[in-house]
Each structure stands twice: as structure tokens, then as C-alpha cells.
């Protein structure tokens, strides 16, 4: 989790009056990046009576947003992806979360396609809303994000899990070599260690007291996981894959 988040949560609670310590209270400052003036005015009205929101400032372009000194000034940036041009909204999301990890990013007006929502999450968005939403809905999503919570749509949640697994190398055939060692089960690591010593399937079966057929399955799975077609190559890769301790000895 990024640093900085806890601080905001704590201050938000102070401000909510859970702990009344006026001198520590720090209100939320927002930057809205949107070409639609009506959204700004609507949000201004909606958030006006919220004791935790100090101010909301509008700006119209991604360029303008990036020229501002965000860190320390703003706690969250709200981006309307519907009124910014597509690549701009996405790259603004990426830039803000890269340059200012302490600043939360809420993107609204997103297309409904799951893949596009996930692109924004990959770019560092902390909360999102699809389609055209009322300012009240944006306000609710914002408050939830500031509490450290996000309600993910079921399709986005599924996509999020599968992208994480895929990037970590445990789903599909894609692996980076650094994802490989963790992906092998302890039994597969044992088999791999024996392969590396040049043992045949029958010898491995004897060594591990299991059926030859089971060994064949393990070998097949190890080769698949290491993305290699031969035992010899797997044995070479084993040096890296078994890097943290040989489980056999």
C-alpha cells in the first residue's frame, strides 16, 4: 500500500469529529479536472455542506493539472474521463499516481468496458465510476475512497484478480522468470531438483516413493510452468527456480 494513505484517513477521522482535536484537523482539498462547468458547480453544491471538504478547485486540462504542485496542496484529484480526451485522462491518472503517490485519484465518466476500467486501475486510479453519474454519486464514491474503501463491480473485481495473477505469473502460460520459483509447488520443486541431478522418471519415482505415472504428471507440469520443452533445459533453469533452498536435501 502506498505511504501517505494512513495519514489522510486519520486526519479525515479527526475532521469527522471522532476525535476532536481542532489543531490536528486537516480538511480535504480537491482538484477537479473537467471541461464540464456544470459538474464543478454540482459538486461544489453537493460538497459545500460536507464539514470535511475544505475546497474544490477546477481546472480544464490535463496539462494544467500536471503543472500544479499537487503534493501537499491536494488530497485527491477528480478526473472526468468523459470530457478529457481518452489518452489524456489515462496518462493524467498515471502521471499523478507516479509523481504524487500521496494524492488519491478518482476517475469518473469511464466507458463501461471492463478492460478500460482495468487500464485506469493499472495506471493507478484509486476509485472509479463508469458512465454518466450524478454529482451525489461522485460525492459518495469520493467519501468512500477517502475512508480507504472501494466498491468494485463484480466484472471489474474478477478482471482485477485475474490480471494480478497473470502479471504475477500464476495464470495462463505467461510467466516472467521471477514469477516461476513461487509458482512451483513443493512437490514440483522436489521433482525439479531430481531432474537437475539427471535422474530418470523411474528413479525419481523410487526416490519419492510415488508412481511413475505421477512423476510423469509432475514433470509435465514443471516443464509447462518453466515454459520449456525438455528436461535438460528445465534442469538448467532449475538453478534459478530453486534458488531459495533445495527442498530435497
Amino acid at each position, binding site marked *: *500500500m*502506498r505511504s501517505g*494513505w494512513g495519514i489522510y484517513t486519520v486526519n479525515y477521522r479527526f475532521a469527522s469529529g471522532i476525535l476532536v482535536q481542532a489543531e490536528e484537523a486537516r480538511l480535504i482539498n480537491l482538484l477537479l479536472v473537467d471541461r464540464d462547468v456544470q459538474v464543478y458547480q454540482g459538486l461544489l453544491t453537493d460538497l459545500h455542506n460536507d464539514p470535511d471538504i475544505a475546497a474544490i478547485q477546477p481546472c480544464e486540462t490535463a496539462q494544467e493539472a500536471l503543472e500544479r504542485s499537487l503534493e501537499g496542496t491536494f488530497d485527491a484529484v477528480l478526473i472526468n474521463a468523459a470530457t478529457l480526451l481518452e489518452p489524456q485522462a489515462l496518462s493524467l491518472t498515471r502521471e499523478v*499516481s*507516479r509523481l504524487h503517490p500521496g494524492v488519491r485519484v478518482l476517475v469518473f465518466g469511464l466507458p463501461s468496458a471492463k*478492460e478500460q476500467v*482495468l*487500464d485506469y*486501475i*493499472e*495506471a*493507478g*486510479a*484509486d476509485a472509479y465510476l463508469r458512465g454518466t453519474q450524478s454529482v451525489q454519486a461522485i460525492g459518495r464514491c469520493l467519501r*468512500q475512497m477517502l475512508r*480507504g*474503501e*472501494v*466498491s*468494485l463491480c*463484480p*466484472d471489474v*473485481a*474478477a478482471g*482485477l*484478480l*485475474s*490480471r*494480478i*495473477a*497473470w*502479471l*504475477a505469473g*500464476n*495464470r*495462463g*502460460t*505467461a510467466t*516472467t522468470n521471477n514469477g516461476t520459483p*513461487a*509458482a512451483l*509447488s*513443493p512437490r514440483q520443486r522436489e521433482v525439479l531438483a531430481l531432474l537437475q541431478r539427471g535422474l530418470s522418471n523411474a528413479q525419481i519415482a523410487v526416490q519419492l516413493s510415488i508412481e511413475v505415472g505421477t512423476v510423469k504428471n509432475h514433470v509435465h*507440469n514443471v516443464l*509447462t*510452468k518453466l*515454459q520449456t520443452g525438455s528436461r535438460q533445459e528445465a534442469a538448467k533453469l532449475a538453478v534459478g527456480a530453486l534458488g531459495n533452498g533445495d527442498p530435497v536435501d
Partner: protein
Amino acid sequence: MDDHRDGAGQDQPKRLLLFEPTQLIGTLWQHLLVEEAGFDPVQLYTDPERALQEVGSYDVVVTGPSLTQDQALEFTRAAILSRPEVRVVVSGVPRSETAVVQVAEAGAAGLVLREQTAEQALKAIRAAGEGEAQIAPEVAPLLMDRLAELKVSVPDADTVGRRFLELTPREREVLELIGRGLTNQQIAERLVLELGTVKNHVHRVLEKLNKRSRLEAAGYLRSLPPGIA
């Protein structure tokens, strides 16, 4: 629950495998899943080796709450290795960043936190059966941050096969044959095309995928997430 559901357009009930080493907990879980989640059958296994042997014939796998984190992770990875399309829901996950992220990275299609109710657990398992997921709002930010981090560390990852989708149907065919190691001549014969045409296609494929060689293009094809190519 006994009605025979084979009407047109009616989805087949999904098959669920439950792995829980404590018999009592497993039996209780099994009853709940049969009654409330609409899976049929719900088969309980208390032995991991047996459970893994049977994974091949199930759509959804649920790991029980009495497993340790390491056991749950190991079982999840092993289940996915023997049946890549199976959807694993890990239950009893402690609400810590490490635990939640590990479960997601191991390939789980859903997770149920220790403090979540039976109702929420059933919702999460039903969602997994439908190819969706229910993630508790409190842990969603952990996973969103993790995805963003992973994306930064693997910047060239084409997570949705975007470049693949830019290929024309013919170019996809050519790529597939490149992936199988065919030469231009062999591809020409297979697709009944002029050699020159094949060379053009190959050139376009490499260009669109931003790859320098056929080998790299074949590697890209293998690296695509399941369900695209």
C-alpha cells in the same frame, strides 16, 4: 433442489469441489453450499492429494477456512496447474495486505475474509461460478494498488492482448503458424497463398506486435492471457 434442470437456455448447475481438512467444518460448509449456492454436486474432500486428483471435473473449487495461509496458497496453485480454467475461491483469508495479495497472485478467482459472514461467503462463491468476483470494499484498495505496482514492474505486459486484437484474422492465422514453428514456405502451402504474400503478412505481424523476430512473436503469442488467442 431435486428438480431436473435441463430446459433450453437454462445453465447447467456448476460443479463445486470443496477442500477442507476438518471433516466437521467441511460437512457444515457442504450443507450450506448445497442449500444456498445452487451448485450441484458439492463434493467434499478432506485429503489434498485426492482433491487435486479430482479437480479436473469441477468448475469451482473452494478451500475451507481451517487451512493455513500456506496450505491454501499451495492448493490454489496446484489446482490451477492441473486445471487452468478452474475458479478457486479461498475462504478464511486474514485481512492483511500480505495475505490478500498472496491469494490474488496465486491465481484465486475469489476470496472470503475471516470476518465475513456466511452470506457474504456464499455471494463470493456464487459470483465465482459466474465468472465474476465479490471483493470486500476494505481490501479492494490493496488489490488495486498491487495491480498498479505489478504493472509498473512489468511495463511491457500486454495484459489484454491489445496488440493481438489489432491483427486481422489472416494475420492471426499467420501468427499462430509462426507460433507452431512453420517456415514461410510451409505457411504459404498451409494457407494456399503466394510466398510473397506470406512474407508481407509476416512483416506486418512483426511490425504490429513490435517484435524483431519470429521467435519473439511466437513468445508473445504464448505470453497472452488465456481466452484471447
